């Protein structure tokens, strides 16, 4: 008998686990984290929403005489070159940072799985490849700033020795500052999609692949018809996680360039911080925050929908 053919009351009753404890116990267990999050996340979020519609700056905030200005802050943000400049740079980061990391990580993970058959060697290589991810972002920033130092940095010297370039590259000028950050970020985070896809590949059932071999499928066919389709969801998760992280990405901007020179490596999240914390335009910073908030909310909702489906399919939930 199909489950859906059972009467609704029966399914509801069967699905409900017997509650061995008082009704208040589950609520009491769940409420501390909820209260903490209400205080330190929801309250600040509401505050931000409110002030995005006010003409608040630091002076007005302390004198408590800010006033409602409608969507003027958003007008200022959308009317400024600084925002569109940063939005373009964000796109550049998403495309060449986040996307490239997932593509590169996927290829490397599958190459590692297919080429290295010895378990010890495989684990050793995996650990080495994933090391950068464990480093604190501020150390990654310092390290890459040092490596990319134009005058006597290691990268320029290595490229000179290899004959790739004839003169020192100015890694932190207007044209290259953001690229330098992206390079450091690729080094830092390609490991995450690599690790996720590799583990996904390891957990695929070997029997399917043996059957395909018996049927005479070639390596390329197995990869295209079996491996990639079966890893589709895992790769999608790697993509979405990197996209969500992209909206949080400010550490390397802080440490490596402080957004400069001439705002050429600013991302929206960095401006939100800068306008509020350093330039005291809190209303405008709130408008920036809200824009970031909405963008990440869209991606997060997408991810949670996806997560629900995958988690259900895996029978975890």
């Amino acid at each position, binding site marked *: 008998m199909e489950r859906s053919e059972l009467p609704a009351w029966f399914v509801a009753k069967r699905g409900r*686990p017997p*509650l*061995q*404890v008082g009704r208040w116990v*589950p*609520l009491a*267990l*769940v409420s*501390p*984290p*909820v209260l*903490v*999050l209400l*205080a*330190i*996340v929801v*309250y*600040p*979020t509401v505050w*931000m929403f409110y*002030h995005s519609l006010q003409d608040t700056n630091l002076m007005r905030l302390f004198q408590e005489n800010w006033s409602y200005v409608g969507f003027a802050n958003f007008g200022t943000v959308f009317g400024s070159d600084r925002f569109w400049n940063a939005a373009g740079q964000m796109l550049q980061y998403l495309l060449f940072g986040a996307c490239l990391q997932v593509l590169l990580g996927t*290829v*490397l993970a599958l*190459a590692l799985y297919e080429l290295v058959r010895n378990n010890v060697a495989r684990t050793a290589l995996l*650990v*080495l*490849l994933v090391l*950068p991810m*464990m*480093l*604190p972002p*501020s*150390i990654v920033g*310092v*390290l890459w700033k*040092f*490596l990319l130092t134009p005058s*006597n940095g290691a990268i320029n*010297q290595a490229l000179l020795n290899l004959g790739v370039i004839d003169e020192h590259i100015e890694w932190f000028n207007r044209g290259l500052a953001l690229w330098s950050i992206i390079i450091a970020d690729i*080094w830092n985070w*390609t490991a995450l999609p690599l690790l*996720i896809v590799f*583990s996904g590949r390891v*957990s695929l059932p070997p029997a399917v692949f043996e059957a395909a071999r018996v049927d*005479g499928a*070639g390596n390329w066919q197995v990869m295209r018809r079996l491996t990639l389709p079966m890893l589709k969801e895992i790769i999608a*998760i790697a993509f979405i996680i990197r996209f969500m992280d992209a909206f*949080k990405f400010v550490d390397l901007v*802080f440490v490596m360039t402080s957004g400069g020179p001439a705002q050429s490596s600013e991302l929206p999240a960095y401006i*939100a911080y800068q306008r*509020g*914390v350093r330039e005291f335009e809190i209303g405008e910073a709130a408008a920036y*925050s809200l824009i970031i908030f909405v963008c*990440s909310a869209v991606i997060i909702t997408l991810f*949670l929908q996806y*997560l*629900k489906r*995958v*988690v259900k399919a*895996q029978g975890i939930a």
Partner: protein
Amino acid sequence: MKSPGGERAVRALLWAMLLAWLVVTLFPLYWQLITALKTTEETNRTVPTFWPEEMRFGNFAAVFTESSNFDALVSSFIIATGNTLLSLLLGTMAGYAFARFPRHAGGENLAFWILSNRMFPPVAVIIPMFFLFDATPWGTDSHLSLIILYLVFNMPLATWLMMVFFRDAPRELEEAAYLDGYTPLQAFCKVTLPLVIPGMISVAMLCWIFAWNEYLFANLFVGTEVRTFTIVIPTFTHGSQTLWNLQMAFSLIAVIPPVALFILLRRYMVRGLSLGVVKG
């Protein structure tokens, strides 16, 4: 199988790529290590050397001649450990409730809402957070402020992962314990909790790494009374001069704990980083 020559070329190409990426990954770490061993004079040359002419192992000790550097590591340790314990406590309680009494604990949507807090960019709400903590008795510039703040990303992670681990632990064992006359608390402590201890350890290590590595909050909230190593290292100067060798030595010391933890728990790492979707 159709064209063995073509396949061999693809294999060779993939090998080359893998090894090239290995070099790209390891070179900065190698550079960090050899710079940490160089003399100050050698780090400032116009043509950098790829192997130190003189090994200065004393650089690692020299980092701590300034006691504030040691204090920074201690502060980071206090904050990371305090936050981990708190995240784990709250996460275990809530995770258990979500796993065993989903409907009475607010249901799936509440669990997903808690998780979503981990994903939102904290930089968007950092200003009101600052004013909020500024109004508390302990202020912003204290260990406690960061211990609480880091709950934003670690507590949702702990809650979610503990929920996944509790769901994997068979509830039949717990029900058997009820039949043997255990109270719910006894059943939890003596039957279920031991089953999820390995999971708890991996969650603790993950939380600890995230808190240890955090930069953004620390950069704004602390700096005078309390300083974490993540904000000390980027501003590591001696007078007007940047002592690259000491800076690299300091950062090497600071990355040892997360790297060591990662090597220990790599099996669980994936599960944590992909929020329990991929079985590690």
